[in-house]
């Protein structure tokens, strides 16, 4: 993480989390700001140039502590499905990442008042005892950067306290750093794709092997693990690449121990696609043709990719819960 500039909101300068994060970047210039929105939300920014040379913004979340999840997300049968942003953007550079279509800014933003976000969720969402599904790392890799933030323990405490809560932590982390068994209602969902697809579309992310090692460590610790096989992206030889990929996963990970597997293609709303194309017109994802349906834009080859995976996972469907996101 080569961070040269850190913008810090004046009000949270002395916050414990701010001071802890700053220790990781002793060489960076610290620039005191009034409100992160003066930077993050301003117009005419160049997301891709910022992404290539990221700065860090440390701020306090002041509003919009959580959101209802989009219908483009797999809801796993949950009707109360929300997500929250403790961070926006990340240090990875996945060419399919939809964040460029929703944010003006490519810098990495961390809300240091993690506990205030948890409080809002407790007060407003968990007051209702019905089941709640909450994704906490849709807009960043919350878990992989926990060495920097140390936010995870507070979320685990929340999950231990509320049995009606299911917490989803999506990650590409090459490590499983927890020392105690996490509560069962926390699902660690590892994003996995064939290594050749990772090489092409997921810059600066951990290798497939290291992710699988982290998964095995998590399973050994008794964590609830989901294998998240998305977004499926076509390749010159999709059939072989994805079939070999499933074989590799099955050889290295005991599927009978994982909670579930979810499979989905690259999908994005039409409006988001418009912003995506404008900001990154030559992204590697555009090597393959897209089709537009009423609600989303997805690969023309999506159905055939799902078919390959379905066939490869045919036997596992009898023993493991598998969710296919199929429009």
């Amino acid at each position, binding site marked *: 993480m080569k961070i040269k500039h850190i913008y810090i909101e004046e009000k949270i300068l002395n916050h414990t989390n701010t001071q802890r994060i700053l220790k990781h970047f002793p060489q960076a210039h610290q620039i005191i700001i009034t409100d992160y929105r003066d930077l993050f939300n301003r117009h005419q920014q160049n997301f891709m140039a910022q992404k290539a040379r990221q700065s860090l913004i440390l701020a306090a979340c002041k509003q919009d502590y959580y959101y209802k999840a989009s219908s483009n997300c797999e809801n796993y049968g949950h009707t109360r499905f929300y997500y929250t942003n403790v961070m926006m953007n990340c240090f990875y550079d996945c060419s399919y990442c939809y964040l460029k279509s929703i944010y003006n800014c490519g810098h990495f933003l961390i809300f240091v008042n993690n506990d205030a976000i948890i409080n809002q969720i407790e007060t407003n969402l968990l007051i209702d005892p019905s089941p709640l599904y909450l994704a906490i790392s849709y807009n960043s890799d919350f878990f992989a950067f926990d060495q920097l933030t140390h936010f995870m323990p507070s979320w685990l405490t929340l999950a231990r306290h509320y049995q009606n809560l299911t917490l989803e932590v999506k990650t590409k982390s090459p490590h499983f750093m927890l020392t105690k068994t996490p509560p069962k209602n926390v699902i660690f969902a590892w994003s996995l794709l064939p290594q050749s697809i990772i090489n092409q579309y997921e810059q600066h992310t951990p290798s497939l092997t290291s992710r699988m090692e982290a998964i095995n460590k998590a399973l050994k610790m008794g964590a609830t693990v989901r294998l998240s096989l998305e977004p499926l992206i076509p390749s010159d030889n999709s059939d072989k690449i994805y079939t070999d990929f499933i074989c590799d996963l099955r050889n290295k990970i005991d599927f009978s121990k994982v909670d579930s597997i979810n499979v989905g293609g690259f999908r994005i709303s039409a409006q988001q696609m418009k912003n995506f194309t404008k900001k990154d*017109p030559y992204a590697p994802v555009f090597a393959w043709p897209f089709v537009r349906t009423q609600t989303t834009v997805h690969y023309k080859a999506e159905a055939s990719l799902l078919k390959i995976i379905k066939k490869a996972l045919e036997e596992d469907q009898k023993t493991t819960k598998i969710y296919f996101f199929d429009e």
Partner: protein
Amino acid sequence: MILKKKNYTYLIFENSKTIEPYLINKIGLNQHQIVYYPDILFDHPFAEKALEVSTFEDQTIFQTPPHQLVILEVPHITHFLEAYKDWLDAMDQSKEPFYTVEERTVIDQSIKALRLSVNQKIQFEKACIAAKLQQMPLVTILHPYTLMIIKNKFERNQRLSQLLNQLYGEKNEN
């Protein structure tokens, strides 16, 4: 002083009290009660600092995108421009474009020869990006189309359809 160059606009303040040039990472404009943070997305040899100015009549800060504005405070402008000429020249270097000149020319010629509508042009441009990303020989594929004489819409649509298939390639049906 405002210096507009190819990639960046430089807003340079002269201050004889400073010994060396500074890159400004935060500027307070008291008159407008505004604080502005230029985006520093480039390498530079300067120390950095914040700057407060009481009056500033130029609108450059408000009109230039934050990643294209460089604010400096220097002891002497002319000396600075001479001493840092190499750095300023390096800042103006362009990124390699996505298409080569030859590719861009053959794309434009194909659009003209095929008499594409606005929508068809968008479709065609997308297919060209895909072909280039797939490292297909764009110039070789497009060259025959630049020589075509299209007589009617039916013929145009047919040729375009054939060309799109070629640019995306049958392998996309995997």
